[in-house]
């Protein structure tokens, strides 16, 4: 029901596909698109389900499997790499006890690697959901994660 309302806010035009998918994914507490979401969008835009599926699997910001409440996306591109992103990756893996692409057992975090986020002025950088964090050190990382854990 609620989902239908989200979808209906957009004109019924195919070029709205990505914008609609973003909104649906955002509305899901587990940050992913369900089969039902895809069917809904396909029907609304009058597209074959396969076309929607095809698009969803192409873009790195979408997921078809449940993810954590918060998505951590660590930038791995050359400027961040030069600034030590790889040491953050070890710190993140250790702190979270998971590998890239996995979700913590409490369902709080999913760890992903991403290409340049366009905030290289503060490399090394990452995003947690829509927030950008830069000038990261393993210590700052711990503080930031602790804050999210506190808030749940």
């Amino acid at each position, binding site marked *: 029901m609620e989902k239908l309302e989200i979808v209906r806010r957009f004109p019924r035009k195919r*070029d709205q596909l990505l914008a609609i998918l973003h909104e649906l994914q955002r509305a899901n507490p587990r940050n992913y698109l369900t089969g039902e979401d895809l069917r809904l969008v396909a029907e609304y835009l009058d597209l074959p389900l396969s076309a929607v599926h095809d698009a969803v699997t192409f873009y790195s910001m979408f997921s078809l499997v449940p993810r954590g409440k918060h998505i951590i996306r660590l930038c791995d591109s050359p400027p961040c*790499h*030069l600034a030590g992103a790889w040491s953050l990756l*070890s710190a993140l893996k250790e702190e979270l006890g998971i590998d890239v692409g996995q979700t913590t057992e409490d369902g709080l975090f999913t760890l992903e690697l991403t290409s*340049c986020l366009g905030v290289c002025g503060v490399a090394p950088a990452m995003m947690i959901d829509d*927030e*950008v964090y*830069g000038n990261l050190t393993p210590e700052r990382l711990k503080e930031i994660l602790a804050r999210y854990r506190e808030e749940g």
Partner: protein
Amino acid sequence: MRIARAHVLVGVDEEARLAGVDRVLSAFREAIRNAGLEGEVQVVETGTLGVSGRGVVLVVYPEGVYYAGVTPEDVPVIVEEHLLKGRPVERLRLPAAVPQTEPRQVLGRQVRVVLRNCGVIDPEEIEEYIAAGGYEALGKALTEMSPDEVIEEIKRSGLRGRGGAGFPTGVKWEAVRRASGQEKYVICNADEGEPGTFKDRLILEGDPHKLIEGMIIAGYAVGARKGYVYIRGEYQLSIARMQKAISQAREYGLLGDDILGSGFSFDLEVRPGAGAYVCGEETSLIESLEGKRGWPRIRPPYPVTCGLWGKPTVVNNVETLANVPEILRQGADWYRTLGTPTCPGTKVYTLLGHVRYPGLVEVEMGTPLRTLVYELGGGVPEGRTLKAVLVGGAAGAFLSPQDLDVRMDFDSLREMAAALGSGAVLVMDESACIVDMLASVLRFFRHESCGQCTPCRAGTDALVRLIEAVRRGEGDGRTLGLMTEIVETMRLASLCPLGQSVALPVTTALTHFRDEFEAHLAGEPCPRCHKLERALR
């Protein structure tokens, strides 16, 4: 801006937000109230001030004093000392080598055309843009010039595309104008994904109306009624600012039907991307905009005849379009006084890595790389030596210190088998390892290859394996030759420029830093790599 004795311009961008700019802003408002300076001192939120990596940056006018790393606790001190007593707080001032200046003028050696308003006006207020001469060029184009005259002026200016390829903008517009069909489109490419590049984001965040004005003019010139701004999905603030700017422009009758009573109608919409570097490639972007996966199209036909929905389409980069209003306002002759004869105007660079003052700079085309690194970037930190500069992003060239005198423009770089690309300049001192950096570049390409064609899909994968072997000291005499062969095959046989462009970083790294690769092949893996290995597994 209203008349006030002093202005405090606070740069609000992603960086500032994460440094807590919101709290600094409220501290300012409170401190100014407490000091009874309301009406006398005005706090203005603006886009980036062009200084990166230094937290909350602000500038106090009329003196033009820059402060960096400002915290809420510093605010009462600035208000008390500087605004009340007129004594700048030295402790927070930016070092002298950082460009300090007055608005809209030359910043050190910087010449601000595109970034003229960035950090000077409030990007959320259309009136400030108009007060700074904004939409004047549009008025001139719509009332005094025919579309052909606009195209002629842009052609005369010599403006070339800032998205990387340097294609003459006027020629592209003319092709779309001449293309048959009633329905045409203008697309602004704001997908900005080239590693090390964030100039377009800062234009979108700092001066969105300049882009809107450029797009309307493009629409008028080519005969389009509709335009799209395709912004990468991660740029939330850019998307929000752009949407707000578009609705303001509509309210002012600058978008929509019969703009300024000229009979010309044009409207704009924003579309988000969803995380795919290849969508910056224009045909892939068009596919994505049409609601499909972003697989590049086989060209020809080119978008100028067969673009969005199969209609003639102009695709231009943000920075390209942001040049347009100033060219029409001040004329092609003025524009040609900047830059070089074949590459007029300015270029915006992102200076990153091992330089003292990383950040955004705008200088004339043809400025030597040395000036960028040493004068604007302040050189490598004390006691270190320069080793390499990666110019143009991941799809760029590794240059050595001997190459520093190269002039930064499309043609000079091409002559030395490099490319200007997006304008990313990543500086490395001796602590960087070129093998390691090239491995990072290659992982990027493997991740971003769209997988449509085999040379690129299989090639990027093989290259990552080979460079990892080099890193571990497991390569042999044939490894480097094999890498060269692969990139050459990719250059010749890949379907789109993504696959073709991998040759540039690989061959330049292998040519200029051959010794380093051979040392890795011969020796033990370094401690740095051990750690890296563990992290990446």
